[in-house]
């Protein structure tokens, strides 16, 4: 029984996706259960997914990154704004910027000894200001139609952006599951001092986590720019809440040390399906907001109760031993 609980709990995000598909599939089969709608969902979540992956990595390492939205927006603007110098330059510039923000965040946390919440709150404001200055408050329009292939194109029935996301997924899965640097992140998030005493370089690990988060946010930005063939200064306002929610649905803990990339993928998929389904059903705005909130509360509360039950069971088991 305990093993069953554990198994189900680790796959709660996937189960949520399953449940949502059934709920929407039965309420609106004609519109929801179509190939083109699934294509839409795939394309829509592919824009958010890299950012969520990055957030998951940071959460695993025990931190949090509130600056992802601003980084994403700036990366999108650079990917469009630098196009006169050639599209590859623009994309590299965008990705480089994301990496740079990650480095700054990492330094603030490791060298500046500032708590991640506070550090990334500061960089969020800073980057948003840079964005407004760079764009002069106007939205930028792309000049390279071929660029939209990444965000908007497809290979067969599969959107290209989705394939990009799958590639990221595989890469990060390998990193976190099999490479030493990746596995160290779990140790750092779980218990920083123990990890340090165990020989793990905590600072290097945190730097890696924040750099990945910044880079991933930039990837999201590039995909958005590619899909819209434009970049707006209004992008990314919702990103911190969305990425943290998706990661938490995917099993991350705000205390660190828990989570998986695959579960994060299901988390962002769940949110995407939820939005899509509610739009298809024509649910009014007030209700959409309330439904999202209720589902979030339900998941968080049930998860917390399950953790408590599990801990109580473990305590009981220890007493009986």
């Amino acid at each position, binding site marked *: 029984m305990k093993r069953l609980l554990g198994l189900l709990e680790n796959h709660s995000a996937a*189960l949520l996706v399953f449940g949502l598909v059934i*709920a929407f599939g039965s309420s609106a089969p004609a*519109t929801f259960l179509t190939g083109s709608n699934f294509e839409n969902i795939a394309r829509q979540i592919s824009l958010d997914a890299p950012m969520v992956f990055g957030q998951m990595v940071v959460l695993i390492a025990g931190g949090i990154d509130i600056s992802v939205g601003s980084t994403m927006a700036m990366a999108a603007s650079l990917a469009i704004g630098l196009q006169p110098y050639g599209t590859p330059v623009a994309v590299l510039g965008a990705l480089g910027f994301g990496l740079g923000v990650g480095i700054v965040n990492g330094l603030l946390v490791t060298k500046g000894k500032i708590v991640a919440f506070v550090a990334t709150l500061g960089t969020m404001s800073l980057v948003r200001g840079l964005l407004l200055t760079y764009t002069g408050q106007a*939205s930028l329009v792309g000049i390279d139609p071929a660029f939209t292939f990444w965000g908007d194109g497809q290979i067969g029935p599969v959107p290209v952006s989705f394939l990009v996301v799958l590639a990221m997924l595989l890469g990060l899965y390998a990193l976190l599951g099999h490479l030493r640097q990746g596995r160290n992140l779990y140790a750092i998030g779980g218990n920083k001092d123990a990890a340090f005493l165990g020989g793990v370089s905590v600072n290097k690990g945190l730097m890696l986590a924040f750099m990945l988060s910044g880079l991933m946010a930039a990837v999201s930005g590039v995909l958005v720019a590619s899909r819209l063939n434009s970049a707006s200064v209004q992008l990314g306002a919702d990103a911190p809440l969305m990425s943290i929610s998706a990661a938490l649905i995917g099993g991350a803990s705000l205390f660190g040390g828990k989570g998986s990339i695959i579960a994060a993928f299901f988390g962002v998929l769940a949110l995407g399906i939820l939005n899509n389904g509610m739009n298809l059903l024509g649910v009014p*705005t007030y209700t959409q907001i309330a439904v999202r909130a209720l589902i979030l509360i339900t998941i968080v509360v*049930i998860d917390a109760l399950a953790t408590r039950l599990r801990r109580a069971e473990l305590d009981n088991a220890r007493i009986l031993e």
Partner: protein
Amino acid sequence: MFMKKLGVRLVLCATFATLAAPAFAQGPTICMVHNNADHPSITAVAKGMSDEAANFGAEITFLDPAFDPVKQVAMIEDCVSRKANVIVVNAVDPAAVVPAIKKAKEAGIFVIMQNADTTPEGKGFTEAFIGSQSFDQGYAVGEMIVKALNGAGKVAVITGKTGQTDSVNRTSGMEAAFKDANATIELIAVQPADWSKDKAMTVMQDVLTRFPQIDAVFGHDDPMALGALEAIKAQGREAEIKVFGVNGNKEACAAIKSGEMYGTALQLSYLVGVYTVRAAYDLTQGRLISKTILAPTAPVTPETVAQWEGQCW
């Protein structure tokens, strides 16, 4: 865990069973994608649309992306999946919606832009623009200011949220009006108050502290203009400063009538909603409609307020 899966499924099924819209509608199905739900001008538009929809048996779905361009694109695509007859879009960002409305056009769905138009490239996929442009609103206020100040003076501007299209357009519209009239107007301060009446009050306070002489204040919407007015009244400088806004809500019109405010650009939001539904109906009946249906931006000043009062909302 099992309980969680069951619980979530039950919650969802119960919610959606009650919310799924009925499938029978005689009139056109319209999918309206706003830019933001929480502003009285948007509510007025929505009301106009709902009221008029009754006349045609039209069924309207309102979606709100809260100023997020990516969400708006997703909502438009979902409208396409819903096979709505007409999609009405109030663009958060003019360029961002282009790929989505292109898809709508390719799917045979009519697209109408409302109040915030798309780029020239995007316009190739739309049938019409209905509403008033925020640039024109700014221009109208600019003209009012030039007239009120006789072409010269010091003007402070309290803008909406930095980077938002309406904010940017209203300022540029006003500046264009100054240029066209060859006015010698000095913009002494341009500060954001994020569409908040309270913030406008505190920002105006600080502007008043800095400048001993101000001739006019332009607040990008009436709540902010009224907030600025409060700050001005608290310092007793009403006689010196003329206050202008945009929207045309009842409070502002009353203030103009009593002489406290000097002008606002009336947005005929309710009528815009009405015209939109009518145009949607005409499109689905195969009739041609004009490409641009501009709701007049009525300049409401102390002289003209009596004429426009009834339209203030």
